[in-house]
């Protein structure tokens, strides 16, 4: 991923910054500039909105054949997470070990982790993941 492509989405990836329709209050992640409910009436009426990062697991899987760059984390957990604001997001769930029982409905909270890197000399990519451990706080 090129530097500019990574950089321009940093706020959304670092702190779950989405957006909100000023007309119907619908929330979006990632950000949208047109609300699918209000269509053209929402244009220029959508503002940034920071999501809390609290949610529960709605579906999950242990990935054994991962994408390039995730070799050291295999098997890793990918989950669809229902955020407390009512919208969903798919992300990695960390702090999972052999004794952790992952389940639908498990509370999780967003944590800041390294997502990948562009080789040994390139950019390091950071962003959101979720942890059941940290769901105890906040």
């Amino acid at each position, binding site marked *: 991923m090129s530097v500019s492509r990574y950089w321009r989405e*940093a*706020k959304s990836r*670092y*702190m779950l910054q989405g957006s909100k329709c000023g007309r119907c209050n619908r929330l979006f992640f990632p950000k949208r500039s047109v609300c699918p409910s209000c269509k053209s009436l929402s244009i220029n009426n959508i503002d940034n909105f*920071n999501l809390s990062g609290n949610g529960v697991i709605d579906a999950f899987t242990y990935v054994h054949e991962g994408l390039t760059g995730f*070799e*050291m*984390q295999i098997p890793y957990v990918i989950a669809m997470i229902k955020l407390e604001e009512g919208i969903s997001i798919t992300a990695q769930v*960390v*702090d999972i*070990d052999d*004794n952790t029982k992952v389940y639908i409905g498990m509370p999780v909270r967003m*944590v*800041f*982790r*390294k*997502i990948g890197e562009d080789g040994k000399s390139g950019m*390091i990519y*950071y962003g959101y*993941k979720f942890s059941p*451990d*940290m769901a*105890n*706080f*906040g």
Partner: protein
Amino acid sequence: MVGIVSYGAYIPKYRIRPAEIGRVWGINGEAYGKSLNINSKSVPAPDEDTATISTEAAKAAMNRVNIKSSEIGAVYVGSESHPYAVKPTATIVAEALDITPYMTAADLEFACKAGTAAIQISMGLVKSKMYNYCMAIGSDTSQGSPGDPLEYSASAGGAAFIIGDEHVIADINYTCSYTTDTPDFWRREGQKYPRHGGRFTGEPAYFKHIIACSNMVFKHQNTKPEDYNYVVLHQPNGKFPYRAAKMLGFRDEQITVGLLTPYIGNTYSGAVMLGTSAVLDIAKPGDRIFVIGFGSGAGCDGFDITVTEEINSFHKEKAPSVKWLVERSVYIDYSIYAKFRNKIILGDG
């Protein structure tokens, strides 16, 4: 008075025991661990580094207080394991906490005392009224060369302190430093692992500087060891701080709360700040804390701290306590450790 307005800690979940490390190198690791008073050390997950640990610690500090991110004027991250040689960790942390852009940021390096250096810089900025609040972070994912004695202690963790002069939960009554050019430990530019002077790291480095800086605090503040409820000294292993404390006249009970190395190893820039966080987790108004950070190369930062009434209304529960973070542990073997710490060479080297 300028002091600590909030604090937050972060320690990765994984642990490895000295016996397991020793097993790989054919030595009695358990005995070696005992000689260092290290039962286990923390290990970062493959997706954790100084930027992520700093960010989690800083988030914890912010969660505990009602300070808007835009009120933080400066972010300093002290570490010897910044992910980038050039490009600040501090801007990553500041962006992730929504503190950017009307602020200043920089990375610091002074071996294990870059975090306390960040506190001192922050105090100066607050005292001079340049900023209301500054974020001082000490954090590391330090590495010892495989097979080196350091491998038994070098670990990962960090803490973030918000420094300000309103709603202060712990006054910093006094700070001072003692600094010389002493090459006890270093890592050259571009090198992955540090080198050290072996036993030279003891007497002429750690002990000489800790004792000298402590005496500066006692003299200036006109205090004695028994005036303090807690003492937190830099803790490269579990033995040195006890010995230094004894030399200074502290009792063992004063040091145990702030001594985490026996459980999580040496978190370098995070060590003294995590130890101080552990004390703040249980301290009562009026408690006095004696803190000396040490960094190889070499120098010490000393602090005389008094806990205020504000700590009673401080929202500790909004972030993990150090005890919780220490007890949250999953033990791994050396093969997983090697995988997590990037010591396994994949296809393209």
